[in-house]
């Protein structure tokens, strides 16, 4: 039924549209089945639906529409039930029976298949209410839901080919070009050249034979916008090409589609066949003088063929190599004839512009970038998928509002736009508008629309290396700067990721990067250095960390980190070694390995916040190894069996060192200094040893006898400890300077900050640190029945859990101004607090303390909501006006919002003190500005963790040793390596299937009431060995690790 008359065709289109309108209230099941849906078994869902419908004799009554991608790939396959428009997500073949029986027949809504908004927890019925879709403007992609791409009738039904008819009937070629120019449409392939202008050049070029091309090569890793348009709505692209061909004066077109898109190729070919049937292609289209034929040509796997001159060469059957422009393809393209090449998305916009008008189009977007753009939002993001947004939306809106933020509570790091030719944009610049000029100004590009989100576990140096590796593979190799330049950039960068980088490397990378960018012949080379240059620009410190400090903060670069756990540990504990020893039952050796680097292991096994576990590789797709639990097992076993650390020490040196403070920093420093042979004297102002460990950390977390067992081992090295001696009072600081050859100040940070709210000094208001200290030192503390605790850090949670244990206390509240996800306290502590029935008053801030007769009656609070991000990277809490309410508490509130050091004892000495009252030191060597005096721990960093304090003590000891021996006081940095490699264990298949992280056995809540018994009980031997066997041994993946292990296997083989 070839149509040879425009009006005849138009009247058919009207009929089809009318009949679709009439059917709009009919039952229809829509199933998304693009390549993304098919990867999640949408084809099986479709088969099951068809079977189910047949079973109920509904296959003729209910329309089953199979469409392309709906955009929300995270929750594919999507099934929408019309006419009600109910949106079901993550549908499995097993769900189809219920869909037919409940949703179709009984007209009920199936709750469990609805989308749940993670912020509110509410279920959502309609697509328009889902946050992912709300800020999108889906002028192109929305049509994917409305049509079956293999049915031309469906396309006609949504006004398809109306634009073509309009153009052929009423518009001259020049008028079409004028309309496209007026719209402001710019090429969507990446360069953003004004489309109307490009068409005009081609039209004006000399010659009768002209070609148009649709560039569907889409080579950027992670980009699939074009694929979804071709799979889901091929006619929109084809109609655009027809209109373009008419405007330019071309009668032959090509669709150059990459080989790896079979479904797109299939659907495009079906569409072309249907167009030919209707007379929309071929000679004399719809009775006019306009001829047009389209050929589909598949690529052969080369990314460079996305570049237009390489693409032309490929179509001509030659090697896909770019050539210099001018002459531009508009003058001399395929077979030297004028050729116009546009991207899939550009073509798809054309029918819209004709139908709705250039003015409509130019009202969307910004001044310089009109219309919408489709992006593939992928990477470390909650809502992965294809998003269509108006130009001018900010990156922040895309990442947080549409993308739903970063999964697993990780912190955002960068977003990469434009694929391997683009650049990385850091957090500070997230408010940048998404348009051609703004992105270019940042050192990135719009590109074809790839948007990869990265979090704190992504290494930016490794990312630059990844993209350079890709581009080196894909470079055609013709021009020297691209070929050799990229190779050398990669060489230098690889050295940096392996720990052999040099200071000069960054400048050389920049110099060479600029060369490749400016002098390469084609777009591939010209944009290849973008990821590298943008990461150097915004993440320079990360490069410096790799080069100078041999540190990969994201714990990714294998040759530097060996295993992420050991690398991340501030005291460099050889985690994989002791875990693999536990796996083999060699507990004494495991104990020795731990003691080598950690003189307070039983303590850490209970209170460390385990940064190692956050970087454990297993944690990326499952549960991390319970490293702290395993350490606990070893130290408990050692205590039981009476293992002693093997370290005999003698005073071999004459120098004497004074350590002020017996907290974790001071104890660690003393231990290592004593082992080096120095006489060490520790001055402790309290009567108990351990600093914060003894004074503040509650006994149910760290029993006093466990702490003392570790301290005893430290004392056995000969460290002298004087208690009840306060420097500045019982002995002056200057006296110490006279008597000792070096001093290490580790006095911590214990002065509580005032909250600054009225009535803070009322009777019954206690400060957290004082409260905890009094409890720990055995003093009697009176608190009332209802206790409020203000704050969200460890001190607050400790105070709350302690208060809950005191006889007479019936209810404890924690009042925190943000949500539970933002509480800085260790997650296990927060979970335990909730277990122990402590009530969390979240998004609440105190405004006034209410008193009566001089005693507390309650706290006036106001509800908060989360607004924009602040400098700490968290959303700023904003009070909700008029939401004030009172939390009734009697007698006591324990206030805990932060502590500062007390450095008054240093008065008279010329120390540099910061505005937070911390001692200023060289952050690498811990030297103060006073010769011979070092400082570390919280007195330098402010309130921080136990392990960080121990780390400063360990490093300071090394620096003090250098100082006393007259050596230069500088740090030497090396890549992380374990001191030995233990043969890995082999797991049975069963073990692999059943492997999971064990829960730490704890006292039941009822057993914890009114006592301070240790809550965590520790693993059994069996559980510990099982968990240790789960470790995937990242230490064996470095070159050294592989070699070592191969050697050992050889040795074993040779012995047998």
């Amino acid at each position, binding site marked *: 039924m070839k149509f040879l008359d425009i009006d005849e065709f138009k009247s058919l289109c009207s009929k089809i549209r009318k009949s679709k309108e009439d059917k709009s209230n009919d039952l229809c099941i829509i199933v998304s089945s693009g390549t993304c849906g098919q990867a999640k078994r949408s084809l099986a869902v479709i088969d099951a639906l068809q079977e189910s419908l047949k079973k109920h004799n509904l296959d003729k009554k209910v329309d089953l529409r199979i469409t392309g991608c709906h955009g929300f790939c995270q929750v594919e396959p999507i099934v929408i039930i019309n006419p009600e428009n109910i949106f079901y997500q993550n549908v499995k073949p097993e769900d189809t029976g219920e869909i037919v029986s409940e949703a179709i027949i009984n007209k009920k809504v199936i709750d469990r298949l609805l989308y749940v908004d993670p912020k509110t927890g509410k279920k959502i019925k309609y697509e328009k209410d889902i946050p992912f879709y709300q800020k999108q403007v889906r002028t192109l992609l929305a049509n994917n839901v409305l049509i079956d791409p293999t049915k031309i009738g469906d396309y006609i039904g949504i006004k398809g080919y109306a634009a073509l008819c309009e153009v052929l009937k009423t518009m001259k070629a020049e008028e079409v070009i004028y309309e496209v120019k007026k719209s402001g449409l710019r090429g969507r392939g990446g360069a953003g050249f004004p489309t109307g202008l490009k068409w005009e050049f081609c039209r004006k070029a000399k010659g009768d034979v002209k070609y148009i091309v649709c560039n569907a090569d889409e080579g950027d890793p992670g980009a699939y916008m074009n694929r979804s348009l071709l799979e889901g709505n091929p006619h929109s692209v084809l109609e655009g090409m027809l209109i373009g061909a008419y405007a330019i004066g071309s009668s032959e077109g090509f669709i150059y589609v990459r080989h790896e898109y079979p479904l797109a190729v299939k659907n495009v070919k079906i569409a072309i066949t249907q167009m030919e049937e209707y007379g929309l292609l071929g000679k004399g289209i719809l009775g006019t003088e306009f001829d047009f034929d389209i050929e589909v040509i598949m690529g052969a796997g*080369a990314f460079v063929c996305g570049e237009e001159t390489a693409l032309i060469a490929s179509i001509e059957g030659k090697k896909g190599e770019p050539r210099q422009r001018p002459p531009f393809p508009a003058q001399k393209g395929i077979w030297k004839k004028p050729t116009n090449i546009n991207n899939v998305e550009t073509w798809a916009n054309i029918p819209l512009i004709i139908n709705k008008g250039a003015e409509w189009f130019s009202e969307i977007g910004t001044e310089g970038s009109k219309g919408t753009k489709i992006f593939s939002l992928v990477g470390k993001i909650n809502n992965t998928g294809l998003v269509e947004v108006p130009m001018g939306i900010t990156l922040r809106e895309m990442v947080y509002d549409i993308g739903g933020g970063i999964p697993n509570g990780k912190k955002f790091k960068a977003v990469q736009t434009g694929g391997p030719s683009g650049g990385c944009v850091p957090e500070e610049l997230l408010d940048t508008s998404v348009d051609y000029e703004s992105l270019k100004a940042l050192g990135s590009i719009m590109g074809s629309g790839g948007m990869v989100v990265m979090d704190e576990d992504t290494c930016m140096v490794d990312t630059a290396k990844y993209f350079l590796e890709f581009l080196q593979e894909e470079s*055609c*190799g*013709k021009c*020297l700067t691209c070929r050799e330049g990229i190779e050398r950039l990669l060489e230098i960068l690889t050295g940096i990721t392996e720990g052999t980088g040099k200071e000069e490397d960054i400048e*050389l990378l920049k110099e060479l990067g600029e060369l490749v960018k400016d002098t390469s012949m084609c777009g591939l080379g010209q944009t290849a250095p973008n990821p590298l240059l943008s990461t150097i620009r915004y993440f320079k410190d990360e490069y410096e960390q790799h080069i100078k400090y041999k540190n990969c903060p994201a714990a990714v670069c294998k040759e530097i980190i060996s295993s992420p756990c050991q690398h991340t540990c501030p005291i460099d504990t050889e985690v994989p070694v002791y875990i693999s020893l536990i796996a083999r039952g060699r507990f004494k050796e495991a104990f020795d390995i731990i003691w080598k680097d950690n003189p307070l292991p039983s303590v850490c096994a209970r209170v460390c916040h385990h940064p190692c576990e956050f970087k454990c590789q297993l944690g990326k797709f499952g549960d991390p190894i319970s490293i702290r639990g395993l350490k606990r097992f070893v130290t408990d076993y050692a205590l039981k069996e009476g293992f002693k650390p093997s370290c005999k020490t003698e005073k071999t040196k004459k120098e004497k060192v004074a350590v002020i403070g017996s907290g974790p920093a001071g104890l660690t420093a003393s231990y290592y200094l004593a082992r080096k042979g120095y006489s060490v004297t520790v001055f402790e102002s309290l009567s108990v040893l351990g600093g914060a460990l003894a004074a503040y950390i509650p006994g149910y977390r760290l029993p006093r006898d466990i702490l003392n067992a570790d301290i005893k081992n430290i004392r056995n090295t000969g460290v002298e400890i004087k208690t009840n001696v306060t420097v500045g009072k019982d002995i002056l600081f200057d006296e110490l300077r006279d008597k000792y050859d070096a001093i290490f100040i580790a006095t911590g940070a214990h002065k509580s900050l005032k909250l600054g709210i009225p009535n803070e000094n009322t009777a019954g208001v206690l400060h957290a640190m004082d409260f905890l200290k009094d409890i720990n030192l055995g003093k009697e503390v009176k608190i009332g029945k209802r206790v409020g605790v203000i704050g969200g850090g460890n001190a607050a949670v400790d105070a709350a859990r302690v208060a809950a244990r005191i006889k007479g206390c019936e209810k404890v509240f924690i009042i925190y101004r943000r949500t539970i996800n933002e509480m800085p306290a260790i997650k296990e502590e927060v979970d335990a607090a909730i277990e122990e029935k402590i009530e969390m008053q979240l998004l609440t801030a105190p405004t006034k303390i209410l008193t009566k007769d001089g005693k507390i009656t309650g706290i006036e609070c106001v509800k908060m909501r989360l607004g924009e991000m602040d400098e700490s990277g968290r959303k700023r809490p904003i009070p909700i006006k008029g939401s004030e309410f009172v939390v009734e508490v009697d007698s006591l509130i324990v206030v805990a919002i932060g502590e500062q050091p007390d450095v008054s004892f240093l008065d008279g000495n010329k120390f540099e003190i910061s505005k937070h009252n911390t001692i200023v030191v060289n952050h690498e060597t811990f030297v103060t500005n006073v010769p011979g005096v070092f400082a570390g721990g919280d007195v330098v960093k402010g309130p921080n963790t136990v392990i960080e304090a121990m780390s400063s003590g360990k490093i300071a000891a090394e620096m003090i040793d250098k100082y006393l021996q007259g050596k230069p006081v500088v740090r030497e940095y090396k890549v992380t390596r374990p001191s030995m490699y233990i043969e890995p264990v082999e797991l049975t298949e069963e073990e692999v299937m059943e492997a999971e992280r064990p829960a730490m056995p704890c006292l039941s809540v009822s057993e914890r009431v009114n006592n301070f018994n240790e809550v965590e009980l520790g693993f059994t031997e069996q559980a510990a060995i099982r968990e240790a066997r789960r470790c995937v041994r990242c230490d064996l993946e470095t070159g050294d690790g592989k070699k070592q292990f191969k050697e050992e296997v050889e040795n074993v083989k040779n012995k047998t």
Partner: protein
Amino acid sequence: MLKIKLNRLEVQVEEGWTILEAAEFYGIEIPTLCHHDGLSDYGACRLCIVEIGEGKDAKFVSSCTYPVEEGLVVRTHSKKVINYRKLIIELMLARCHTSKTIQDLASKYNVTSVRFKLKSDDCILCGLCTRMCEEQMDARAIGFVNRGKERKITTPFDIKSDVCRTCGACMYICPTCQLRCQGPEPSGAVCGGCLNIEYPCLDVYDDVHCYLDPCAACLLEESRKKKSTSNTEEKNVFNKD
């Protein structure tokens, strides 16, 4: 005739000329490697880059392939161009430091160190040989094969060619295999300079030994003289007397 601005001089050029041809006509020397007057222009080595356009529209193009156009503004010796040329030569040295042609370029443009690992490759992939074989010898026996790092020049499928007449034109035109550098440090990154101004060989001979293209001996002889104070080995670079 067209008018272009060549290094701030307004000059007249023929339509159809490349920037390189225009510069040569006006006596401005632009270094090249993969360009040859008898062969088509390929634009692969990037050594002939010049800066065109002004302000933020300025960009770098290979002058051997860019046709002149009315009003074109060209800078052949801008600061950036000079620096880029040096870096390009440095990249070439890193790949083929045994090539005399490249060493000559290095000494002429004052490239004295190579900051990259030396590869000691035999081929700079300039394509002169393939174009020679195709355009002048009409044989088409060799061509480029593979992509990126794996790119090389060979016969189809590495099979012995039936159309190759072993004429040797490819070897003749090749900048890396024609003359192995005989200089004093052939294994080093930078050989020490083939261009000089004085002729110490005249101390020994009656005629200059290197005619139009001075040879390495001279400058080296000078520096050798400076270095040796009490050396018994007083032989000059020519190892005579």
